[in-house]
Structure formats: C-alpha cells, structure tokens
C-alpha cells in the first residue's frame, strides 16, 4: 500500500498547467469552487438583465421582491436535495403546498373559530401554523412510509400524491378560494408589514458576522487541537472578511428599501410626525420570507453536514448497500427525508398563503418542477450522493432571477418558460461535463 500513494496524481495538476498560483490560492481557502461559480453566474444574470433594462432592474425593492418570490421554492429545494441525494424524488411537493395552504386558510377562517378560537385571538395563527406543519409532516411521513417500508418507488408514490393531494385541495374547500387570514400570520409573507425594520436588520447582520467569525475560529482551534493541517491565516481572514462584508452589505441593501411614499405619509400623519422635504424614509429591512430562507438554509446545512441523519442520507446515496451493511437504519432515514420535505412544504405554504392572504385551488401548482430544477441547477445529481443545500438555494435564485429578469424586460411568460427549460438543460450539461473532467481526481 505504500507505493499506492505516490502513484495517485495530485488533484488535477496534470491536465491544468494554467495559472497554478491562483489555483493554489483558491485551494488554500478550501471553498467550494462550484458554489462560488454559481454566485458569479447569478451575479452575471442579474447584471445582464440590469443592463438590458437600461439600469433600472437592480434596486432594493425589486431584489427583495425577487427573493421573496423565490423563497418558497428555495426552502423546498433544501429538502429536495436530501431526497434526490438519497436516490428518490418527490413530485408531490406542489400539491402538499396546496393542501397545507388551504388548511391554513380553513383553520383560521373556519375550523378554529368553530372551536372558539377566532381570528381575534392573538395566538390563533400559531395554532394554525403548528397544525399545518403537522399536516405537512404527516403527508410526507405517509408517503415516506410507503416508499421506505412498503417499497413502492418514490416516483410512483409521489406521482399519486401529486394527483390525489391536488384533488384534496378541491375537496377541502368544496372548490372555493378562501381568504382573510390572521394579521400576524400574514407577516410571514413579507411585504410592508412583514419586514423586521432597520434595527433588527442590523442586528441580524451583527449576529451573522459574529457567527461567521466564531465558526472560523472554532474550526481552526478544533483542527489545531488534533494537530491537523489548517488553512493559512490570510485565507481565514479573507473568508471571514468576505462573509462579514456580505452580511453587512445585504443588510444595508435591505435597509435601503423604504416604505412606499404614500404609506410613509400615512404613517407620518398617524404618528403626528411632520414629513421632511423629499418624504419620510422608513427602512423596511429584511422581510420575513428572506429570514425564513436564511434560517432554513442554515438549519438544513447543519443537519446535512453536522448530524448523523445527514451523514446517513449521503452515505445511502453514495452506496445503499454500504449504508445497510454499516448497520444504518436506511428505511427510517429515507422516511425522515420525506417527513422533512413535508415540513418544508408547510413552511413554503405559509409564505405562499400569507402573501395571498388566503388560499386558492392552485397554490403551489407546478412547484415540484421548479423545486427539482432548483436542486438540479444547484448541483444535485440524480445518480445519488451528490448535492449541497446552499447550492440548491442558489439554484432557486438563479431560476427565479431568469424569470424575473425576463419579465422585467417585457418578455412574455411562454418565452420565459422556453428560456428556463433551456437553461436547466445547459446548467446540468455543463455540470456533467465538468464533473466528468474532474472525475479523474
């Protein structure tokens, strides 16, 4: 075994003689090159549309709208990554969103009031939210049970779910749309009322910076404790600086999104403030859907890479037999991925129904396609075992940026779909190509 090591080529150096110093520097930071590539692609897409629109597109209000529009798909894509990584698929997510959104609406307007918990009760929305999340978990759990324990292919189970759950939305509401949700619940959808304001937004930035620095220091200490090789100091500082700059920059950007002038005037009148010339500028800060995306992304990333559950999902995806032989309870692991997916659908449904202030029969329709597309554009492989949570979230933003950018520039929606489809194929084709080239590592 001694000579085996020397015969293994160091990663990629044979084929790429290019700017080796730069490559070495990138390798030293140990960052995910693919993820950074996607960030640049996203920036490129936004910038392209910005220029196309004559410099009108990139401004806080538009970008906040874009992210809020993508939030549901982004949240669900984090769960879809784990499902696809473990060699399954979930086609029912859009229909789960439909059922849960309708459940929220009916709970708040009909079922809970019948139990004496009306819309005027301050915590009614929390009860409804908890119940909806429970419904999502139950649906996911049931489908997961059929897949993991009964052994029906996930494609079939969730295809059945797609059809029957969408039908259930009709049956639940007898074919009617339901509206008029709890005021607090509606904040989940973002908008003017559902934003956390200037101070809280800066607080988020501060906490994020501390967390980034803390994490870097902690990791370095851990590796030093065992005497493992550590990143060079400049790389640590650079990563920390980039992370903090991003957190502060995003917060500043969100805080430069102001309350619309009309509402600001109204606010000034109501609170007896005299409006300064040029109007009252009230920063809105982060809306709740963006915070939910951030929170879910962090939590899911943590689950995927720091917990046994995540490790087992990836191990199963990499080699199902190995996972089984290692004594992992693979069936329970698979079922858990579907429960988690159901919960994430319920969170997405909360955002969707809160934005609508109700539920229609087609909430979440076709979401499964966008969610799968986001995961796949984000680098998740159908071969199993490969895919990252942040990648899928970025994938969701890439897809939404295309749709938003095209519609902002007056391209009609059929053409948007044509472009989205082509981009999906190109993105995955490019990914497959680079992976194949890199597979000799």
């Amino acid at each position, binding site marked *: *075994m*001694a*000579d*085996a*090591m*020397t*015969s*293994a080529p160091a*990663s990629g150096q044979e084929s790429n003689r290019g700017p080796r110093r730069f490559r070495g520097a990138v390798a030293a930071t140990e960052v995910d090159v693919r993820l950074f590539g996607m960030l640049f692609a996203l920036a490129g897409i936004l910038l392209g549309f910005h220029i196309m629109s004559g410099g009108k597109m990139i401004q806080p209000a538009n970008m906040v709208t874009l992210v809020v529009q993508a939030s549901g798909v982004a949240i669900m894509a984090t769960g879809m990554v784990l499902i696809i990584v473990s060699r399954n698929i979930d086609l029912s997510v859009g229909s789960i969103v439909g059922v849960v959104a309708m459940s929220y609406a009916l709970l708040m307007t009909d079922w809970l009031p019948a139990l004496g918990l009306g819309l005027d009760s301050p915590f009614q929305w929390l009860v409804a939210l908890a119940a909806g999340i429970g419904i999502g978990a139950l649906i996911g759990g049931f489908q997961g049970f059929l897949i993991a324990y009964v052994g029906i292919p996930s494609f079939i189970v969730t295809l059945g779910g797609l059809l029957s759950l969408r039908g259930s939305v009709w049956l639940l509401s007898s074919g009617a749309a339901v509206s008029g949700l709890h005021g607090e619940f509606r904040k989940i959808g973002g908008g003017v009322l559902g934003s956390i304001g200037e101070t809280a937004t800066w607080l988020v930035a501060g906490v994020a910076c501390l967390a980034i620095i803390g994490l870097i220091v902690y990791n370095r200490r*851990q*590796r030093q*404790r*065992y005497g*493992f090789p550590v990143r060079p100091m400049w790389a640590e500082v650079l990563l920390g600086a980039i992370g903090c700059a991003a957190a502060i920059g995003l917060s500043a950007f969100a805080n430069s999104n102001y309350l619309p002038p009309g509402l600001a005037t109204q606010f000034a009148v109501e609170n007896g403030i005299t409006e300064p010339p040029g109007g009252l500028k009230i920063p809105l800060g982060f809306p709740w859907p963006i915070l939910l995306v951030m929170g879910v992304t962090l939590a899911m990333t943590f689950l995927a*890479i*720091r*917990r*046994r559950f995540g*490790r087992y999902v*990836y*191990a*199963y*995806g*990499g*080699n199902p*037999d*190995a*996972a*089984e*032989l*290692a*004594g*992992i309870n693979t069936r329970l692991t698979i079922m858990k991925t579907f429960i988690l997916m159901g919960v994430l659908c319920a969170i997405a449904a909360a955002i969707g129904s809160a934005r609508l202030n109700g539920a229609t029969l087609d909430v979440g329709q076709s979401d499964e396609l966008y969610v799968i597309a986001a995961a796949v554009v984000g680098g998740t492989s159908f071969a199993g*075992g*490969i895919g990252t949570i942040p990648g899928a979230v970025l994938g969701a933003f890439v897809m939404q940026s295309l749709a938003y950018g095209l519609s902002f520039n007056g391209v009609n929606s059929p053409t948007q779909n044509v472009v989205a489809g082509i981009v999906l194929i190109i993105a995955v084709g490019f990914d497959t190509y680079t992976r194949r080239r890199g597979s000799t*590592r």
Partner: protein
Amino acid sequence: MSEAVAAAAERVPLVEMRNIRVAFGGVRAVDDVSLSLYPGEVVGLVGGNGAGKSTLIRTLSGAHRADSGEILIDGQPQVIGNPRDAKAFNIECIYQTLALADNINAPGNVFLGREATTPWWNLDDGTMEDATRKVMGRLNPNFKRFNSPVQSLSGGQRQAVAIARAVYFNARILIMDEPTAALGPAETAQVRDLIRQLKNEGIGIFLISHDIHDVFDLSDRISVMYHGRLVGTLNKDDVTTDDVLAMIILGKKPGEATREELEELRV
C-alpha cells in the same frame, strides 16, 4: 495436528455455526454447513464460484438471515438479524466489494454507522479524523488524503480504509472476503502481515480467498465448500495444496476421490 490448534480445540469457540441453510428460491446456496472459529485462529474458507462461501459468511455478518441453523457466540446461541447485531458481538466484515460510501471521506467511512458525536449529538469530525489518522498510520503510513471522498483513492487505499473500519472497533471475529483480490504484490504482503498481527492479538479470522497460496500461508484450518455443501474442514498441516484443489474441484475429501478422478485433474 499442531500444538496450537490442539490447545485451541479445548477452548470454547468464538463462533460456532451449526447446520446453516440458506436458499434463494429453489437454489440451496448454503446447505447444512457447520463451522467453528477459535480465538487467534485463521480459518480459510475456499471453494469455486457459487460454492456458497460469501452467502455463508453473510449470515454471520448479518447481511442475510439463515433459513435455519444456529449461531453460537462464546458458546451461547445468538440471533444475528442485521449488521448492527453482528457488530454488537464484535463481528466485523471486510466485504469483497469493500462496501464503502464513495462520496464520503475516509474518516466518514471508517465510522459509518458508528459516528463519534459531541455531547450535543453533532458529528465529532475532529475525533473521527484523529482516530482514522492513527489507525491508518498502522495500515498505510503514507496515506494523507483524509478529506477526499474515497472514490478518488487508489484500490489499495480503499482497501486500507475498509480494513481500518473493521480493525478500529476492536473486532474479535473478523471476516475477510477476498481481502487481496484488488491489490498489487506489495500491498498483498502488507495485508498478510496484518492478518498475522491480528491473529497474534487473539482475533479469530475467517479468510475467504481464491488464492490457494494465501490460504495455505495464513490459515490454521481450511474449510472447503462445494455447491453449497461443506466438503470438509482440515488442518492445514495435514493436507497438501493438491488435496485442497481436488476438494474444491471434485467436492470430495482426499480419501473419497477415485484414482481416475484425480488422474483427470492432473491433465
């Protein structure tokens, strides 16, 4: 019979498999096979393709359930229903396929299913990497790629990871299914040294191999299987490689084969 083996015979076997049967549909993959293994002993398990070696051994590692028969560990009848049960009895298996999750790094594979965690049940990557560095230092001192997916490692390195996984968790009973099939000469020598070392530590080893020289070199006893049946278990010192080859090919013990059959083999 060598003295070491004679002494071993008086002790309680680490494992005793009695009358194990496994059938796939109508095919009797393992048909009424009994085997035993003593501490510090290497039992070579040989036979042609489809003789039932791997299936038999998989009932011991928990990968398959036997249709009937008994498994005794330290003289006590036990039920091994899945790989977790087997591991609870310190039975470790190095599969022919290695059974590695290719997308996960070496420490992740060594600890797969038995991850070290922090007090808050988070994965303790530091501890796992540290332990893996130590055990790999013994098996393959030049190995440095602890953070690459094992997919990108060479055959020998992957084999070392699979062995490290079995060795690290204080195996008492070690099953090695073709441990040297994918290895070059230098690596094979290293695995042989390792087997001798583990044997001296008192571990019982089932060694499955196609390589009759490997088996003769390392085993104390040799069990031959033929079409799911156990032809016989012999002390290595009592037989020649030709005897064993005849058993593998004809499915008969040395005394049972006719002169004509043996003549045919020579040709």
